[in-house]
């Protein structure tokens, strides 16, 4: 991609959509915060002009819906104005969450691929396991996560690993399902051809099934990395709000600090973008090296 087409096909459209979101957001701020502001004014016995009222709805300390600039100011303060490793810094909290996410994602991807390979090759697994893997994901892990964390801390496992395990649990599923589909995606013709070489299942896996599954692999890794992040954040909630994006969300919501909550949400989204983009870029590089037609 040339620089020009990057601007035209990425930056400009994404920028426009983000601008539109911010505009809609501002449009919602006033009606969302107005009722409470009216109550406030009434109790305080003040009457204000429309302009004053509008400004007030956008400057509440604990608004129902914070205005974008309030969130931006909070972000600015908590990222650039403090040391990145201080406990007040969102960068520090993002890093805590990111490290659990990456560990969980790596384990989840490995587990998912292993399960998919097993399912594709062993009929007993295909029949007995796949339905239960699906069932496992219908269990609201988010409800069970606290119990798991408590259970694990009672046997002395604390810190990164419990969070990462919840990430693993959420991320192995998309990988497993996608890879089962991907490993089964080669042409019947190609499979027949490997048969005529009397290739071992291992060889068919390495030379045909795995390369053929790459598009599925990267598509499901994108879903999985996002799921991992959710897992890490959820895993942070029951640890007593010590560190991480999840703890910021929780701490913010104890005291109705909606601005903090939104700032933490945005920090989470930024981490998400970075992760998904990284997977996407690696996917593109791999696909080009595998001879894909470049547009």
């Amino acid at each position: 991609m040339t620089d020009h087409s990057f601007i035209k096909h990425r930056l400009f459209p994404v920028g426009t959509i983000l601008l539109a979101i911010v505009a809609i957001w501002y449009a919602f701020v006033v009606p969302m915060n107005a009722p409470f502001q009216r109550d406030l004014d009434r109790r305080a016995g003040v009457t204000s002009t429309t302009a004053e009222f509008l400004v007030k709805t956008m400057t509440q300390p604990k608004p129902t819906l914070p205005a974008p600039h309030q969130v931006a100011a909070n972000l600015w303060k908590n990222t650039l104005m403090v040391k990145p490793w201080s406990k007040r810094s969102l960068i520090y909290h993002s890093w805590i969450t990111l490290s659990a996410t990456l560990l969980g994602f790596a384990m989840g991807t490995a587990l998912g691929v292993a399960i998919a390979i097993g399912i594709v090759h062993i009929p007993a697994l295909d029949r007995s396991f796949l339905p239960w893997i699906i069932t496992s994901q219908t269990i609201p892990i988010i409800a069970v996560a606290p119990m798991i964390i408590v259970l694990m801390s009672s046997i002395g496992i604390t810190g990164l690993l419990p969070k990462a395990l919840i990430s693993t649990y959420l991320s192995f599923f998309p990988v497993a399902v996608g890879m089962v589909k991907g490993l089964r995606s080669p042409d019947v013709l190609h499979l027949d051809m490997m048969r005529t070489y009397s290739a071992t299942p291992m060889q068919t896996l390495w030379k045909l099934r795995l390369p053929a599954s790459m598009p599925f692999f990267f598509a499901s890794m994108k879903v999985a990395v996002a799921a991992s992040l959710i897992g890490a954040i959820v895993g942070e909630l029951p640890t007593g709000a010590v560190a991480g994006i999840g703890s910021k969300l929780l701490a913010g919501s104890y005291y109705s600090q909606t601005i903090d909550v939104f700032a933490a949400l945005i920090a989470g989204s930024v981490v998400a973008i970075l992760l998904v983009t990284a997977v996407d870029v690696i996917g593109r590089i791999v696909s080009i090296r595998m001879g894909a037609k470049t547009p």
Partner: protein
Amino acid sequence: MTLFRPNWQALLSLLATLYSLTAVPFTATMNGSSSYLVIALLLLGAIGSMLRLSAMLEIAILVVSSLGAAALLIGGLTDATGTANAGYFAGLTAAWLLGWRLVTVLSGDGRNLGTLSSLLVPTLFGIWVLILWEAIVRGTGIPFVLLPPPSAIAVRVTTSTSILMADFNQTVLKAVLFGYIVGSLTGFIVAILADRYRFLANGLLPVGNMASALPMIGVAPVMVIWFGFDWQSKAAVVVVMTFFPMLVNTIAGLASAGEMERDLMRTYASTRWQSLFKLRLPAAMPFIFNALKINSTLALIGAIVAEFFGTPVVGMGFRISTEVGRMNLDMVWAEIALAAVVGSLFYGALALLERAVTFWHPSYRR
């Protein structure tokens, strides 16, 4: 040809059984004779499965030995919670290995057992999960407030059906169904629009990827503020959660039609809509079903989590979060079981539909 055909599950099972001989009786209330009966059953299964018998006979022996031993072992825990010794667990392992052998025999012989085996095998797997859970929890005496045994959960399910039904009605029939349909449909429609206007797609996809990673924990309270504390706000969470997977998948699916097929449609000077309906939507179907399946689990989880925030005092998520605080873990697991059953049925129905609609896909012609 010898009469002997060893397999690794039976061999290991034999080893475990022999070890268990060193620790009879297994629990405080299990007498020696019932312990030896377990051992006899296990030996029968292990040796029987290594002889060259007909498949039917081998299956019969394995069913009797593995499930029989398991039943005796669990029965041996009556009034003896937490007293199981190492021999008990060796016996349990041996029975489980025979169960594994049974599953292997059944799936290997899939052809002559047909659909029966495709139902039987996963069921057996599930039964073994429950057996191990029950035996380990009660055998080692894990506190009830940490993990209740399945038997206690089953009792709770039968005594609390009306509560479960009310929660199901609130969470699934109202929030999940509505949110799932609206979210998937809007995702689909926006994808079609984005396909029409490249600009939208270029802008929406990255934003979509980012939004799908947004932790719902953050969105749920906001939705409660916007849509009230009843099911509408839960449905809104589900809408948000299901929208992006459908959007992203549909866009990818629409792009998946082959080069030559597109060229073919070009030569017909077909309109955008015609290409869409005749080529690109059918080609996108596997992707769309992928999204529908992902969404089916997401929707359930989303609705349940949303109920952790403001909610009326009914609903599966409400029940789970409050009963944990009341130490009624059996009720919590009853709700989790309900969620799992509902989710699995939903998923299964989608898988059947997928097979009917995308019958032509190579993955069904292995």
